[in-house]
Structure formats: C-alpha cells, structure tokens
C-alpha cells in the first residue's frame, strides 16, 4: 500500500475515533459540576483561537494581509449587528477587493 492510502486510512480512522471518543465513552453520564463551568468556556476559548489562527497565522508565521483586513471588516459588521450572511460576505468581499487593488 502506498503512502497516500496509508494517510487516508490512518487519518480517517484517527479522526473518527477522536470525534466519537467523548460521545461514546461518556454516554448517559452527566459531567460533574465543576467540569460544566470549564466546558462552558471551551466554546469561547476555541472559537477565539480559531479566529486568531485563521485570520493571522500562515504556517508558523503571523501575517497581516488582505485576509486579516477582511476579518476586521467582518468584525465591524458584527458590531453593527449585521446578520451572519452579511458578516461573511463583507469579510470575503473586503479581502477579495483588496487583493484586486494590490
């Protein structure tokens, strides 16, 4: 078997197990009280980390480019309470527009 198929099978199985681990093993159990307060904060912590890395990270470098400007424009739309569709379109259009200019 070649390297490509080894990667496809191993990564596929590993990802399926990682995703299923919690839901299968913790089936029918309530998380303890303190854990709930920590788990509640997983969403803001992870979302902020995803925003930061996807807006500013390029491999292992921090870059401020058209993509970051697009996200910034999206942030402005969020502050103006724009609906989700508008936020996403503003971000994409800003990044695309700046790339045309530059």
């Amino acid at each position, binding site marked *: 078997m070649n390297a490509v198929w080894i990667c496809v099978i191993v990564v596929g199985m590993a*990802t399926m197990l990682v*995703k299923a*681990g919690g839901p299968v093993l913790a089936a029918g159990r309530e998380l303890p009280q303190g854990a709930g307060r920590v788990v509640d904060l997983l*969403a803001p912590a992870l979302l902020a980390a995803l925003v930061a890395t996807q807006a500013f*990270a390029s491999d292992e470098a921090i870059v401020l480019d058209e993509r970051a400007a697009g996200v910034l424009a999206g942030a402005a739309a969020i502050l103006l309470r724009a609906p989700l569709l508008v936020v996403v379109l503003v971000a994409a259009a800003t990044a695309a527009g700046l790339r045309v200019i530059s």
Partner: protein
Amino acid sequence: MTDARYRDGMRVMLPLMPAIVAFGASFGVLARAAGIDSLAALVMSATTFAGSAQFAVVSVLGAGGTAAAAIGAAVLLNARYAPMALAASGAFRGGPLRRLLEAQLLVDESWALSSRGGRFDRKLLLGAGGILYVGWNAGTAIGVLAGDRLTDPATLGLDAAFPALFLALLAPLVRSGGRNPVAAAVMGAGIALALTPITPAGVPVIAATAACLVGLIGPPRDAAPGRLAQEASS
C-alpha cells in the same frame, strides 16, 4: 418529513455553502496536484471530513514528506475535536454505533452553532453538520474533476469568510456571558497567537483550550443561548 430543528441547522449554514464547496474543491485540486489519486481524495473527504487536517496531509505529501509526518500533522490538527466532542457528548443519543456515526458530523461550524450556553442541541448539530458534509464532499468531487481550471478561493476572499464566521459565533458568547467568557476568549486567542511561531500547526488551538480553566475562578454564570441558536429557533 424532516424535523424543523434539523432544517434550522441547515438553514443557518446555507450562507456558508459557497465557501464550503469552494474549499472542498480546492482540496480536490490540490490533492490531484500533489499526486494523490481522485479516489483517495474522495475517500479522505468522506471519512476525515476536516478541512485543515486534509490540507495538511496534501501539503506534507506534496512537499515530499513521509506518511508519518503527514499523519502526525493531521492528527495534531484534529486533536481539538476530542475536547469539543466531549463537551457535546450529552447531546448524542442511542447506542455506541449510532453515537460514533452521528459524532462524525461534528466539525468546528456545527459544534459552534449547536452550542447553547454549555449545552448542545443534537438536531441543530446534525442538520448543520449534514449539509456541511454534503457541501464538502460535493466540492471535493468538483475539484478532482475540474482540476486546476478552478479559481483559487483566496481570490474570492473565501479564506476570510471562515474566521469571520467564527467571530460571529463568538460574539454572542462574549456579549451575554459576563466576565469569564471574555477572559476565556482573550486568553484563548492570546495563547494561540503566542504559540503560532514556535509550535507546529494544530498545537496553538489545542493549547488554547487551557483558557477555559478560568471557569474555575469566580461565581458560576447563568447559561444563555447564543445568538445563532436564537436565530435558528426563530
């Protein structure tokens, strides 16, 4: 007839479908360019269903890296799904096999959408994850068939669409939840950016989960449903 809440999950994800299909297509194109055959690319999108890890495998193999290096990078990138799936574990129903299969529809977007003040709405998650799954795999198929005749998604600014989406999903958590979510978000972003230059991709986001330990400080907060969960239920 589909339950209304599955449809709600799909509806909220609709604005993102062009971006999802385009990124699926770019995975297909890059996979072919890196010498990965079409069937392998399609199987990978159907089984792994996680963009960043799939791109990592393509870029490592395309650059002449070993299978072990590609697998290592992909597993690191997907390790974040362990805490995310654990947090959402209460939402899943039925026996182990059904839980295993349904949990495959958990991706960043469906997870964030279905989060309602620490609890997770299974139907929103499955509806959103299901339509994302269709879009991702359809996109991959388009990509492997069309090859390099497609436009780079960056030209359309689609690379800015995803962080903007996550920011939009983050905003209501920060707005309504008091001090701790703000602290968790700021620390999460700070940890991720600080580690970006010095650790392999994937590590910064996993390490950022440590920020949720601020939940052990101070009084408990009231659970409040996120803006998008409200949008979905309206």
